[in-house]
């Protein structure tokens, strides 16, 4: 039997899913053990038990000076920024994507412009954002928007253009105005694709968030990581990295769930 036709059973499949995670953990544990054996005060690869200890401390014990549990405080600050940035981008992208995809006049005006703007490296304009919007929350949210909005607009307008011409013509013969076509034909078909696009842009969004927090901030997950870097506190950094990964993964799962729950018509036929 060919390899392409062989499928693992349920148990083996679960084992295979777990395999790379377990392998990574074991490799880290062995490396850490080897380094600690040579130098017990090594800070680069703290033992897994040490990381777990640190994680418990970070999650439960308040900071002595500010009386706050900084971990949750950071998480909240970062999530607010991320949600605002991604949410505003998504809303703008849907509106502009529909306009560019449906209206030839807007397409002629904006499509080329968006294509050029999307080539600007967002981090290169970060200093401008700090100068214009100050060091507060606004500049971080704007960086996320600058970073992912052009991609979202290009993706969504392309999706609108992919709607078969026949379907638009059919709506026209039913007497639909441009507005009704946008609202009742294009928008509903765009929503599942929006979720797809947002899922894809979550990675870059986190990147820009952490970059902005690393450079100028007073709280946030990225800020904390770059702060404790000075003390080589690998246990704290790794805890935060694992937490960020988990958050990103859960967000992705939620978006996928929304897509399945609310857009049942996208499921394959029969």
């Amino acid at each position, binding site marked *: 039997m060919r390899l392409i036709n062989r499928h693992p059973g349920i148990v083996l499949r679960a084992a295979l899913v777990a395999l790379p995670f377990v392998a990574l953990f074991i490799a880290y544990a062995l490396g850490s053990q080897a380094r600690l054996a040579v130098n017990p005060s090594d800070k680069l690869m703290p033992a897994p038990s040490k990381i777990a200890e640190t994680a418990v401390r970070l999650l439960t014990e308040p900071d002595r000076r500010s009386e706050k549990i900084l971990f949750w405080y950071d998480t909240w600050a970062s999530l607010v920024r991320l949600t605002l940035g991604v949410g505003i981008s998504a809303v703008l992208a849907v509106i502009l994507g529909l306009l560019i995809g449906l209206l030839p006049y807007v397409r002629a005006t904006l499509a080329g412009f968006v294509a050029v703007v999307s080539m600007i490296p967002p981090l290169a304009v970060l200093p401008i954002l700090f100068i214009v919007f100050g060091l507060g929350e606004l500049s971080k949210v704007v960086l996320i928007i600058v970073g992912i909005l052009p991609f979202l607009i290009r993706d969504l307008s392309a999706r609108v253009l992919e709607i*078969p011409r*026949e*379907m638009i*013509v*059919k*709506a*026209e*013969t*039913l*007497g*639909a*105005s441009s*507005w*009704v076509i946008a*609202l*009742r*034909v294009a928008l*509903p*078909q765009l929503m599942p694709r929006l979720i797809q696009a947002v899922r894809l842009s979550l990675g870059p969004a986190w990147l820009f968030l952490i970059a902005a927090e690393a450079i100028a901030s007073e709280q946030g997950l990225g800020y904390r990581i770059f702060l404790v870097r000075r003390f080589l506190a690998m246990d704290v950094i790794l805890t935060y990295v694992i937490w960020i990964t988990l958050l990103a993964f859960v967000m992705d799962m939620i978006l996928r769930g929304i897509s399945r729950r609310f*857009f*049942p*018509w*996208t*499921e*394959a*036929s*029969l």
Partner: protein
Amino acid sequence: MSFVTATNIFQSYGRRPILERVNLSVEEGEFVSIVGASGCGKSTFLRLLLAQETPTRGEIRIDGAEPAREPGLDRGVVFQRYSVFPHLSVLENVVAGESFRRPWGRFIGAEKRAARDRAMQVLARCGLEHMAAAYPAALSGGMQQRLAIGQALAAKPRILLLDEPFGALDPGTRLQMHDFLMDLRAETGMTVFMVTHDLEEGFKLGDRVLVFDKPRWDLTDPDIIGATITYDFDARDGGIPFQTIKEDTHVFRPN
């Protein structure tokens, strides 16, 4: 005065003529089949009838009205594919036939209930009552086309345009669709234009069969000449409209 008139239609894309000198007049209630080889301009002519494109020269009028510049309520259409909205349930698809002309594209309250009742009647007529809540993706090809026809008729168009509507269906389903369409037409008396590449289908369903082809063939540059209507058959009574055979002739005649 005939219902649909096409006068001296020319259509070219760039410098390449597709149609030339097409003249046609159709009475209200006629079923016109349009046949021809691939690339002979029959689909182009349907798009002109639909007002999806405007002809380079000439004009098409329905009931003497000004030539349309874009598709509208007076023209209903069913394409080979993509004729129903995948994000609306079967029932909502039919309701859309009435509600899309509204400013917000939807009905509310009592109007909505009334529209739903009417839509259920349309669905019953199309044999899709049991699928009202399903999405089109769950329908077979024949059911989707029945839905598309029901949806187009719910908007009460003046003429119905069919672009190879049964082209993607299997032969058995296609025969069922023929019966469905003929019954529906007998009820509504709708003026229908149907593009098909199936001659038998064209003759079976149509009152008239138009053949699109190039009238001349330029050997040095075949593309220089556009297509026109080269034959206009009267297809009533199985193609023998003016004589009724009384006796049983034992000659095989497909109906």
